[in-house]
């Protein structure tokens, strides 16, 4: 690597279509180290697809993503991007944490095994070391006491906190949150947002797709409003959320309130 890193995440001209529906129509996004970007917008606007293209759960049709100064899924040979083999892609993904709307905890494993599996398999960390770190992380999200439970015995909020601990166990350089609180009962949203807030305070670089406007206002360094596959408006929360320039943004925010 020769150039210094200015952006922890750099997304350029990202395009993605499913069949003949163009979901992303050329997205650019920069997230500086330690910053939090909240992505808001109506459903179907391409927010989740953008997130899933960053860790290449979806393969973009055009454009590229850099995380921590490294191409995700590509290698630069002279001036052309070349797709990389699976193990290189896995190494990139290992440094990008992702939290899903539906938690997606491994149902066949205890909480502790959920958190230790990937460090052991993908990072080759010893079982004792992985367990020690996992317990520290579970303690951080307030769930050390439930390490031997299976996921289906936990509340939604608890499952999502375990999912966050599981992602953090890989010591990622960025975290992606895909509507992490949308599937939760209202009274459980707070505990997950608290964990996310603490994570942002600790200097984690985060991209948060969310409908929690209050959270965005409080935590985001930048708010990105997406509509119909493009970034319609972006800026500090005070501007985008309180004094939106675009009519589309105003309409969306009005419907939320």
């Amino acid at each position: 690597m020769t150039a210094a890193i200015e952006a922890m995440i750099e997304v350029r001209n990202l395009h993605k279509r499913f069949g003949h529906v163009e979901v992303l129509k050329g997205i650019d996004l920069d997230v500086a180290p330690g910053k939090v970007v909240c992505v808001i917008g109506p459903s179907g606007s391409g927010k989740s697809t953008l997130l899933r293209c960053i860790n290449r759960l979806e393969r973009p049709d055009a454009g590229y993503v850099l995380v921590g100064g490294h191409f995700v899924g590509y290698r630069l040979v002279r001036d052309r991007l070349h797709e990389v083999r699976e193990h290189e892609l896995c190494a990139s993904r290992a440094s990008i944490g992702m939290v899903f709307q539906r938690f997606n905890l491994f149902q066949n494993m205890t909480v502790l095994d959920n958190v230790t599996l990937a460090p052991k398999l993908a990072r080759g960390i010893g079982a004792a070391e992985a367990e020690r770190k996992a317990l520290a992380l579970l303690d951080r999200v307030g769930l050390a006491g439930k390490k031997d439970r299976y996921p289906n015995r936990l509340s939604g909020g608890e499952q999502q906190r375990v999912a966050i601990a599981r992602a953090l166990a890989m010591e990622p350089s960025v975290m992606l949150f895909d509507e992490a609180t949308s599937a939760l009962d209202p009274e459980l949203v707070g505990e997950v947002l608290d964990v996310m807030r603490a994570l942002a305070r600790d200097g984690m670089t985060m991209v948060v797709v969310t409908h929690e406007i209050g959270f965005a206002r409080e935590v985001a360094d930048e708010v990105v409003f997406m509509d119909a596959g493009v970034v319609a408006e972006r800026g500090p929360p005070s501007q985008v959320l309180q004094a939106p320039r675009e009519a589309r943004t105003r309409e969306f925010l009005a419907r939320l309130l």
Partner: protein
Amino acid sequence: MTSDKEVEPRLDLPPVPLARPGRWVAAAFVALLVAWIVAILFNNPNFQWKVVGKYLFSKEIIDGVKLTIELTLTAMAIGVVLGVIAALMRLSQNRLLYGTATFYIMAFRGTPALVQLIFWYNLAALFPKITLGIPFFGPDFVSFNANTIITPVIAANLGLGLCEGAYMAEIVRAGILSVDPGQREAGIALGLTRAQTMRRIILPQALRVIVPPTGNQIISMLKLSSLASVISVTELLSAAGLIYTRTFETIPLLIVASLWYITLTGVLTLGQRVIERRLGRSVAETAPDAGIWSRLRAGGRPIAGPD
């Protein structure tokens, strides 16, 4: 308005249950029927229970039982391995892999197992020599006479195993598809490879859907293996047949064979329950781990968990 409660009902005694006379009549009728059937079984001299007793543990029959067990287990082992491979091929994005597996499943599910067995038995007519080597370009490493390596037992194992693989492929595929796609995404997103995700996350969860029908497959394979009798494999049914063609004690020997099939099926059924119980653990985390004996005491009915 008047109340039904003319006096305070006694709460120290349980409510008097509803009398169900119909149930008693039905039970009496069935009891009579069963007694009648038992009487027929034991009073009809043609069943020749003495002969049954004489052959039940005879060496020929026991050898047949052993071969039946061997055939069942080998064919199922081949079937499970082929089934997993074919299922993964069917789920592949690669058209050729998908097409090959689809054709295999169609061919082997679409023809009777009996036809396949006879076909394998007569393989030598189609390929007199079987050669191991690099296809098209050579060299050949070893060459065998088909008649010497495809013995009847090998033919039976191959035939039943290949046939079973086609059924298992669909069972395994259904199992894999039953796992929430989010499980795969979570594994991939953590940086696990597709193979690690399949092995550690998806297949273990698919097992809960795969095991019950596989148990049924083993049980039907046990009985399907009797088809091997037509290609002169002396499994249980053949062993019994060899005796009754000699002694003309057909009925008692068929009863001997049936008693063994029923016993083996019973053993397999119990084994299946134990395995299903273990797989269910992440669902019923705190359910007591009931052993075979407590299950038997509970009359084979599932013991109620704390749910």
